[in-house]
Every structure is written in C-alpha cells, then in structure tokens.
C-alpha cells in the first residue's frame, strides 16, 4: 500500500514538472529562510552551555541611578569582590577580572604584535568558574605571581609558532613596552561557543604590582567601570532572595557622598548572551533582528504554502477521477486523505532537500545579517536535519490538509459521470489567497521604497555643517602627549593639498552623545540644562562651515575658557536674541558666540542644546582635515592622504595610520537602516518571486483549460490582442485588489517606522503609485509568459485535438 502511494506520488510529481517545480521552488525558498533563522537561534542558544555548574554562576552588575536618569554597567567597583567573599556566606567563589582595553602593542623577542583580541587580568578563581584543560602550568599556581601570563593554545601558537605548551613556559611577553611578563601556563581553547573566549590571561597580581593599579584599582565603591567585572559562584542550595538582600545591604553600607545610588544585581550566566542592557565586550544575540527574520521566514513559508494550496486545488479535477476509482474499489476517505497528504509530504521533503543544498550559498549572501561565528558546518548535523524533518511535517499539514480534503471528498459517481467542474475547492478561496499573497509582496515593495527614501533623505539632508571633502584622523588614544598632536597638526597644515586642518574632539555629528549639565543663574532663578559638548580650535567652525549668528569664533585654549552655544541652547537659557547671551557667564565661563543649529547625531534625534569650546590639552585628539578640490580622478585627495600618512609616520612611527571620510562617518550612523533596507529588498524580491510563481502556475492551468475556447474565439475572429487581454484581465484584477488592500497596511506600518525619526521624509503618494506600478508590471510580465503564446497559437491545433 505504502509503496503504491509512493509510486503514485513520484509519478505525479514527475508528470507535472511545471507545477512540481513551482511548488518545490517556492517551498524551498520559505524553508531556506526558516532554516537560516533556525541556525541563528541554534547558534545563539549554544553560547556558554558547556560550563560546569553554570546555573550557579552569576555576573554581578550595577544599576546606577542619578536624578532622573539611570545607567547600567556590566562591572562593579573593585572592592565588591572582597566584600562579597567576606560578608555573603552563600558565595562559594568570587572571581574578579579586569578587561584590558588599553594594550596596543605586544612585543615578543623583539617582534611586535598588535592586539586585536581582548586580554584580561585574572587569577585562579576565574579558572575555577570557567574551566579549561591545562596543557602546561596549573590553575592553582600559574597566576599566583605578578607578571605572569597564561595563553590559550591558539594564542601560544601565534606568538611562539612550533613550540610545545611546555616549551612556551618561561618565555617573555612585553605589553606596551612597560609590562614584562613571563608565560606560566597554556590552556586548550574552549570548545564550543562562548562569550568568555579570552586568549590571554595576565595575573591580576600584575595590576597591583605595577602602574596599572592607578588605571584599574580604585578603593571607591562608586567607581564603577565595565572593565572591572565580577563573576560569582553560589553554593548549591541558597536562597536567592536572601543573597540579593545581602548584596543590596552591602551596597547601602558603602553608599557614596554624591546623589547617585548604585544597586548591584546578580545576572544569571545564561542571561549574559541575550541581555543587551549592559554594554560590554560580548557579541550579544540580536533578539529584535531574530524576531524580524522569523517573521520574514514565516511570511515566505505561508506564501509558498498558498501556492501549493492554489495549484493543487485548481488541478483537483485531474486527481478527482483517481479518487472516484479508488473509492469504487473500496478505498476509504481516510486512506485517500493519507495518500494525498503523503504526496504533499514528499514534495515538501524534496523542497527541504533542495533548501539544504542551497543553504550554504544563502549563508554566504546573508553574511552581514548573521552572527560572525555562524558557519555552514553546522548545517549537516542532527539537530538541523531533525528540524527540517519537523518543519516538513508542519508545512505538510498546514499546506496539505485543505487540498487533501478537497481531493479525497470527491464522490465516485459524480466523478465517473463526468460531473466534476474544472477545478475543485472554492474559487473565491483561491482568489483570496492569491490576493493576500500579492498583498504581502506589495507591502514589502512599498516598504522597501520608503525605507530607501528615508535613507536617501537622511544622508542628503542639510545637517547644518559641511560634509564633503573632510577626513578625520584620530590620534592614538593611549598617547597623551599633547605636543605630538600639535606637531602632527602643523605637518598636515603645510601639505598643499590640504585646505585647512582643525584639531578638536568629535565630529559635529556622531554615534552617541556626550553632555554636561550647564547651570545658569539669571539672578532670580536657576536654569539647569543638559548640553551636548563639542570641542575644537578656531578652525573647527571654519572647516565645518558652522554659521556664526552672533559674537565671535572660539579662541584656541588648552583648557576650557569660553563657550560658543547653538541657538537651541541660547533659547533654553531664556534668550530670544542670540546677541543677548553674549558675555553671560555659565559654568564659570563667558559665552562669546552663537552658531546656528546643526545635527549632532542621526536624524533619529532632535538637535539638542550644544556648547562648543576649546580644551586642547584634554579633548583635542582628532584632526579634522578639509581637502582641496579632488582634481582629476581624485588625484589631489589620494596625494593628500599619502602625505598625511607620511606626516603621521614621522610623529607616531609605531602606530597604525587610519582615516575616515566624514560622509562615511555619517553613513555609518545609518547602518541599521541600511541593514533594514537590504533585508526588505530581499523580502520584497523573494515574496514577489514566490507569488509570481503561484500566479504563473494558475495562469498555465487556466490557459490550458481554455485552449479550446481560445481556438473557437480565434476562429470567430478575435485578435491576438483581444485574446491576451481576455486572459490577462482576470488575473490583473487580483493584483489590483491586492494593491488597494496593501496601501493602508503599508501606510500604517511605515508611519510607525518613520516616527522613530525626528527628521523624516514625507510618505508621498507617488511612492505608493510606483510600488503599485512596479508590481503590476512584474505581474504582467509573469502572466504574459504564458498568455501571449496561448493567444498566438494556431486555433486548428486546439480544435483538432478535441
């Protein structure tokens, strides 16, 4: 029986190549999308699952509350570790570690390495929580002494190629020319995905025994930094509420003077990978993107399922005869249902196999949407194969039940008497499904257009400062020597291809914000205002062509001595006329000028009150270089950059030269929008592709059915054009209805999306018109593949075959 079904299924799939191909391709796209999402979920879920007793490990994090504001930090102040060990009996192990984010140069036997990965300072406690296999050295002793370092096997291989773990012991590694350490152990790399994939562990005693102490260690309880972190392991049976209470008591005992309040919390180990509230070194799972992608996959699957339902029920009459025959031979309704569902399952399984084969390609295309560590090697493992099997079953049931019902329900007598209409199932249902397919496709097309329009608007909006022909060069942040920066600026100034150079802080617009509280006392009342800060010398205003509305430009100064405010700030302090605020003292310094407003961040946020000042010694670390006319083929610019690099090498011979064009900096403010746009592009393309396949299938079916009618009409004198429009009109009606229904839906969704931008593009009617036109043209093209040929065909052939 089963074999019989199997044979019929295969022969049916084979016999209807066009329809099978349409179904398999559509389903394969949907299944592929689901597969990628599954891989991502699987990947993100695999993080840090292999640690011993990980359910008892927590990270201690801080919530810091100011007046009206709060900040979260992944770190705690340094004294917390010792205090927890002493005062909270439930703590089995407390493992503080410091994240080294300042090391720039690593020297081994005269050879230099640049630090690309995170180095931490840790001790034996860290290794008792995150357990490694020790190839040489031991967790107990290796990190006891100052100036010792433990490497992972891979790192040891990079630094000391060819040496065995035992031979590496005793070798010297020098950090930043000043910290001389000796290798005291090698551990094998962690197997499996982990957020704690550090490769170099310097003993924490090193920090205490060197100048690093000033940088990391502060005895103050309110000195919280995400680079000083604490992992704790609790005893196996503890009352969490009690531990939390003890922890907050500990915090209260050491409450600082200021008006900030810190609450420490225990973050479960399993939460670390998914929680983005705490900015740290970890590549968090992007849950929002995961949800978005899941929705997309679901949408594509549904579209493909609709194709299957439509095509199968449309062709039901072909199978109806089989139903009739089988029933007259004693086949039951249930047996027939099972047979047709089995056939659907075969088709879905074929689609799954196709998906599995195409998936590596897909992973390549979608690389930028995927987490870095995700590779296609996970593709051919049991969990993935089981997932595909499960998905195939679910898709089979969802897409297959209704068609199977339609097919198995035919009564033999009606079939055998030839009383079956051309198609089974309800015609309105097929039409509705087709309309909803195109609605989805139409929605994605319109959304793509508007998102692109908003990005175009964001990039081309007048932000209130000059954006072109400017490059920025950041001096090494660990190098505090002010005179070097001055020298570099001088050298750049003399380059003929450079029009102007300013030394200052951040660019006018940047990703993020730095602000100070400004307090202005006008005699009667006090106005406190959060003010965005920008730093620069006199040339800063000139390079960026900021418009001075009143007063004068800044004078360069080593420390803050005067303010230039923007209009917003002027108004915030109660001055309608910019000239009125000149000479007013705010935060001990006079206001000497007012510039017009400019955007300090992406167009998501409103222009804030801003103060520009000069604080060269502390804050001027970036060269803002205005280049001359790019010249033929950008020759002038490439010369300028070569010469700036030469100047850099003279000043900072050991540091890497990097520069960035300002337009690029601004573009980077919109990476997530660009990502959305790219994703939408794909969605629109794939959604349309699947829907068009379904449409094509229906068109092929109807035209084949109407071959005779077409022949008769042509014999009676219908023109090719009349035939084409007759065949096309029915389908285009559906596309037009889908367009009309998609308008409110896309308007509503996009309206919400645009609301996240303070400065946004208009939702012009012509966007909808273009979206509709694009889909109409594409649908028309799809339909015409079949209709034109049918209309051209010689009527004699159609009629003779009868």
């Amino acid at each position: 029986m089963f074999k019989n079904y199997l044979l019929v299924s295969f022969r049916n799939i084979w016999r209807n190549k066009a329809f099978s191909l349409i179904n398999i391709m559509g389903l394969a796209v949907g299944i592929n999308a689901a597969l990628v999402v599954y891989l991502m979920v699987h990947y993100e879920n695999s993080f840090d699952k292999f640690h011993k007793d990980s359910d008892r490990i927590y990270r201690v994090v801080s919530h810091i509350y100011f007046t009206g504001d709060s900040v979260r930090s992944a770190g705690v102040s340094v004294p917390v570790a010792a205090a927890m060990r002493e005062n909270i009996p439930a703590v089995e192990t407390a493992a503080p570690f410091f994240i080294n984010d300042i090391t720039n140069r690593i020297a081994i036997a005269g050879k230099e390495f640049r630090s690309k990965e995170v180095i931490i300072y840790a001790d034996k406690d860290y290794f008792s929580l995150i357990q490694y296999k020790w190839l040489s050295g031991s967790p107990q002793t290796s990190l006891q002494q100052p100036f010792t370092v433990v490497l992972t096997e891979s790192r040891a291989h990079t630094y000391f190629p060819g040496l065995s773990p035992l031979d590496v012991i005793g070798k010297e590694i020098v950090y930043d020319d000043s910290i001389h350490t000796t290798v005291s152990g090698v551990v094998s790399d962690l197997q499996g995905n982990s957020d704690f994939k550090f490769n170099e562990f310097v003993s924490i005693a090193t920090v205490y025994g060197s100048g690093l102490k000033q940088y990391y260690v502060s005895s103050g309880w309110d000195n919280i930094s995400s680079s000083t972190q604490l992992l704790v392991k609790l005893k196996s049976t503890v009352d969490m509420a009690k531990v939390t209470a003890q922890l907050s008591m500990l915090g209260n005992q050491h409450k600082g003077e200021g008006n900030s309040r810190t609450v420490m919390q225990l973050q479960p180990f399993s939460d670390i990978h998914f929680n983005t509230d705490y900015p740290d070194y970890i590549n968090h799972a992007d849950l929002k993107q995961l949800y978005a992608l899941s929705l997309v996959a679901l949408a594509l699957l549904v579209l493909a399922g609709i194709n299957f339902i439509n095509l199968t029920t449309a062709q039901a009459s072909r199978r109806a005869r089989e139903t009739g025959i089988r029933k007259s031979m004693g086949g039951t309704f249930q047996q027939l249902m099972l047979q047709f569902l089995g056939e659907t399952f075969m088709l879905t399984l074929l689609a799954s196999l196709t998906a599995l084969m195409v998936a590596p390609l897909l992973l390549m295309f979608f690389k930028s949407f995927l987490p870095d560590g995700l590779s296609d090697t996970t593709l051919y493992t049991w969990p993935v194969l089981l997932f595909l099997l499960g998905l195939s079953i679910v898709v089979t049931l969802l897409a297959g039940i209704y068609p199977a019902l339609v097919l198995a329900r035919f009564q033999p007598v009606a079939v055998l008497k030839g009383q079956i209409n051309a198609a089974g199932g309800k015609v309105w249902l097929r039409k509705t499904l087709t309309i909803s397919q195109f609605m989805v496709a139409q929605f994605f097309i319109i959304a793509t257009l508007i998102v692109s329009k908003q990005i175009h608007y964001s990039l081309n909006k007048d932000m209130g400062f000059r954006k072109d022909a400017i490059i920025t060069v950041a001096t090494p942040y660990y190098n505090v020597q002010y005179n070097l920066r001055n020298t570099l600026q001088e050298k750049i100034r003399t380059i003929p291809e450079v029009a102007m150079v300013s030394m200052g802080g951040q660019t006018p617009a940047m990703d993020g914000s730095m602000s100070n509280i400004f307090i202005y006392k006008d005699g009667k009342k006090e106005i406190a205002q959060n003010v965005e800060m920008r730093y620069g010398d006199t040339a800063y205003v000139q390079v960026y062509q900021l418009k001075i509305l009143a007063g004068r430009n800044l004078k360069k100064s080593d420390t803050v001595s005067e303010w230039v405010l923007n209009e917003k700030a002027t108004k915030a302090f109660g001055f309608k006329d910019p000239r009125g605020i000149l000479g007013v003292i705010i935060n001990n310094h006079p206001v000497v000028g007012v510039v017009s407003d400019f955007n300090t961040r992406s167009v998501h946020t409103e222009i804030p009150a801003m103060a520009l000042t000069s604080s060269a010694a502390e804050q001027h670390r970036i060269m803002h270089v205005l280049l001359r006319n790019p010249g033929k083929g950008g020759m002038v610019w490439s010369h300028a950059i070569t010469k700036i690099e030469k100047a850099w090498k003279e000043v900072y011979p050991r540091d890497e030269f990097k520069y960035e064009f300002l337009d690029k900096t601004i573009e980077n403010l919109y990476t997530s929008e660009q990502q959305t746009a790219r994703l939408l592009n794909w969605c629109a393309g794939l959604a349309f592709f699947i829907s068009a396949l379904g449409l094509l299938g229906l068109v092929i079916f109807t035209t084949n059915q109407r071959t005779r009618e077409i022949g008769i009409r042509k014999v009676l004198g219908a023109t090719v054009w009349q035939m084409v429009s007759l065949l096309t009109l029915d389908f285009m009606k559906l596309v037009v209805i889908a367009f009309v229904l998609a308008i409110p839906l896309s308007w509503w969704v996009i309206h919400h999306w645009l609301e996240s931008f303070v400065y946004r593009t208009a939702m012009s009617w012509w966007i909808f018109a273009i979206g509709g036109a694009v889909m109409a043209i594409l649908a028309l093209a799809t339909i015409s593949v079949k209709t034109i040929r049918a209309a051209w065909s010689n009527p004699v052939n159609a009629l003779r075959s009868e």
Partner: protein
Amino acid sequence: MIQLQKISKHYPVGFGKNDILKDIDLTINEGEFVSIMGPSGSGKSTLLHIMGLLEEPSEGQYLFEGERVDKMNEKKRTQLHRGSIGFVFQAYHLIDELTVYENIETPLLYKNIPSSERKSRVADVLDRFNMVAKKDLFPSQLSGGQQQLVGIARAIIGEPRVILADEPTGNLHSDQAKIIMQLFKHLNEQDKITIIQVTHSDVNATYGNRVIQIRDGHIQP
C-alpha cells in the same frame, strides 16, 4: 442476490424535481448475465450506480444478498466494494500514474492482502488475459481494447460475486467489443460471476441471458 423494491430516484430541479427512476422492482439471481438497455437518459446508468452502491435511491429498498443496503453504514458499504462488487467503466477509468500491473493490484491493496499472495494473483490474471508482456506499460501506452481488458482484470482480481459494467464496449470498435463480451460470457459461465451490463448494442445483449428494457425511468414489461 439483488432485490430492488419500489426504488425511485429524483433530483431537485428548481422548485420541482426531475424523476430519473420510478418504482423499480427488480430481482437478479446469482449467476445471471443481465443486460440493461434503453435510450439515452432513460435512467439505466443511474440504476447501475444504485446497484453498485455509488448512488443512493431517493425511495425504496435495496437488498444485497438479503441485507438492507440503504441501512448500511459507510464501513459496510466499503466492505462490499472491496469484496463483492467489481466495476467496469465505459471510459476504462484506469489510474494514469500506475502501470498495468499496479492498476490490477490496487483493489488487493485495499483488501489488505499480503504481498506474496497479491503477486501470485496478479500474475494469474495477467496470464489469463494474455497481458504478461504489457504489465509494466502505462494505460496511455495501450489501445482502448487493451485498457478495457485491464479494467476487467482489475474488476475480477478481488473475486467479486457481481460485476457491474457500464457500457463496457461503448468506446471500442466491434472486434474489440467481441473479445470483451466473450470474456464476460466466459466469466459468467466458468467463474459463476453475476454480470450486469448497461449497453446500447443489441449484439452485446445477446451474450447475456436476460434483457431488461428501461424507458423514462420505468422497466418495460
């Protein structure tokens, strides 16, 4: 074997009804070869379908081997289809996706007959009908007469006690028709299978031993 008592069949048409069969009383005994004849639209096919349990009468009683069929549930009817009744159709109605062998085998699958027995029974029938060489062909590769032979082979493989044939030679030319009719006669005489056929042809009717004339839903005396 088959007893029809006051069988009527009508379809609703608009506000009225369209009578197909009216008060049919008919008894067919085991081993008979009956031909039902009549002009188009006289109701003979409907009568056959009712006897084959493919259609239900609007009124009247139908007894198959003494059992009330109109009282039977779906399961019992299916049992009758599997075991007692074989169908032969004018348009053959073979399953296009199955080979000759598989088409003949299908009724046995529904009877849950084990694979080895299926094999031998299909082989027997193929042999008897001289179609061993054609067993792997698909219906579309056969002539009409050959297709009908497969149709008959499929009808008798389940060893039914009655074969209902709806114009079995309607699509065949006379030579092929002759072969089919001789086969029916043979099945009737040798295998003692009751045969009821609907036919237009007086020649075909002569193969049987009883003719029932039907006109406007009534059996002509």
